[in-house]
């Protein structure tokens, strides 16, 4: 799901209200893909590219634009989206969350599953790590914003670092996986060294390459 931001004229006022929004819920845009709807801006708006840069500097991840006027310069980095009638149905309420004084507790950032993940099941946890006390079956998938720990056989798919976390890792007691992915870099079973099959293994990213090694 992507969020849609629609800047309104006057842009300066809109930016101010956006800033106050961000100060009230600092993590709201973290890791969320954003589509910018520029349709409300008048054609003669100066320096639209500058506005987009300003948003990027605020940590907003723009994945595309909509409604840009053909005369605007400097938007090449943000490709226009051709949404086929899939416009969002309603505006989203931004939750008011207090600025955390201390980092969130470990509990809030990890998910523990104490039973096997069965074929066809999908466990997704974008906020952090997933630990599974059991096996992940063929045809099941586990998707985490952080790392994935499987204290059993990993026979399905494990997708770690979903929110752009290249330091995420995947650990399993027995590697039989169909697919491993970290921050968009993936390997299928065919790509994995046969010597690692059935072994306790960890996977991590070294640059753009996925590395796999036995744990013991």
């Amino acid at each position, binding site marked *: 799901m992507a969020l849609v931001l629609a800047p309104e004229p006057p842009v300066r006022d809109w930016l101010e209200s956006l800033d106050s929004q961000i100060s009230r819920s600092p993590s709201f845009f973290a890791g969320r893909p954003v589509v910018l709807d520029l349709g409300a801006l008048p054609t003669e708006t100066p320096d639209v590219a500058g506005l987009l840069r300003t948003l990027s500097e605020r940590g907003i991840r723009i994945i595309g634009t909509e409604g840009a006027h053909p005369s605007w310069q400097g938007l090449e980095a943000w490709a226009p989206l051709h949404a086929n009638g899939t416009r969002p149905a309603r505006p989203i309420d931004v939750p008011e969350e207090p600025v955390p004084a201390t980092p969130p507790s470990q509990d809030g950032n990890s998910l523990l599953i104490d039973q096997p993940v069965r074929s066809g099941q999908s466990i997704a946890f974008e906020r952090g790590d997933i630990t599974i006390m059991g096996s992940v*079956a063929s045809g099941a998938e586990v998707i985490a914003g952080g790392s994935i720990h499987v204290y059993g056989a990993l026979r399905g798919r494990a997708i770690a670092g979903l929110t752009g976390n290249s330091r995420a890792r995947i650990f399993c007691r027995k590697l039989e996986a169909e697919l491993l992915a970290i921050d968009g870099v993936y390997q299928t079973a065919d790509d994995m060294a046969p010597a690692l099959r059935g072994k306790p293994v960890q996977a991590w990213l070294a640059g753009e390459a996925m590395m796999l090694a036995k744990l013991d």
Partner: protein
Amino acid sequence: MATVIVVTSGKGGVGKTTSTAALGAALAQSGQNVVVVDFDVGLRNLDLVMGAERRVVFDLINVVQGDAKLPQALIRDKRIDTLSLLPASQTRDKDALTAEGVTRVISELREKFDWIICDSPAGIERGATLAMHHADAAVVVTNPEVSSVRDSDRIIGMLDSKTAKAERGERMDKHLLLTRYDPARATRGEMLKTEDVLEILSIPLLGIIPESEEVLRASNLGTPVTLGSPNSAPAKAYIEAARRLRGETLVVSIPAERRGFMGRLFGRRAVA
């Protein structure tokens, strides 16, 4: 108190209907009051395997939709009077089953019987989910083949999430019934090993039913194998499985290959 059991598998052709009939008959033979219910609406088979196809007047759909009373649709077995069948409709499809209707039928059956054994259709759609919804326990029928094992795993996941018991936050007992086990192919390594299946599915083993001509013959004759040839290897395995369902603890025996004369000859030579 009545126990509702769903016999399920995900995959078709693994032996759900045969196992429903054999387990139902075995439980009834031990004096329990048993009804076997065919949930495979549109592809009715249990009546054939039970040898009651010519006695079907009303069916599950008639009862679900209120066109017939439950006692009118129940068919009592001619060989064991504690065994009954509630047949499916062959002319309708699964959409004719309503959740409320099934709930009502199951609660009526609970008052009449000790065991309600529901034969689930293959697949994971409406028919299968309605068959499992009211179950207290499940018998997961699996062949020692990778496709069957993965489909069973999918079904186990649904038993843990889509049933009334799961919705109440309770845990459903699940039993693995390994069917069509071929000792000869197992020794040649052409099938998944029992321990591999158990490791993947991680649910307790109810029994191992050997692949046998007797099972096929029993199905075609309309006689559950535990009734027709109670001394055959598959019948013994089903009878033991039924005793385990009743809570007895019995060691599961892995069927060994019955070797022919030449096999015995070579076997002895190898030992000598």
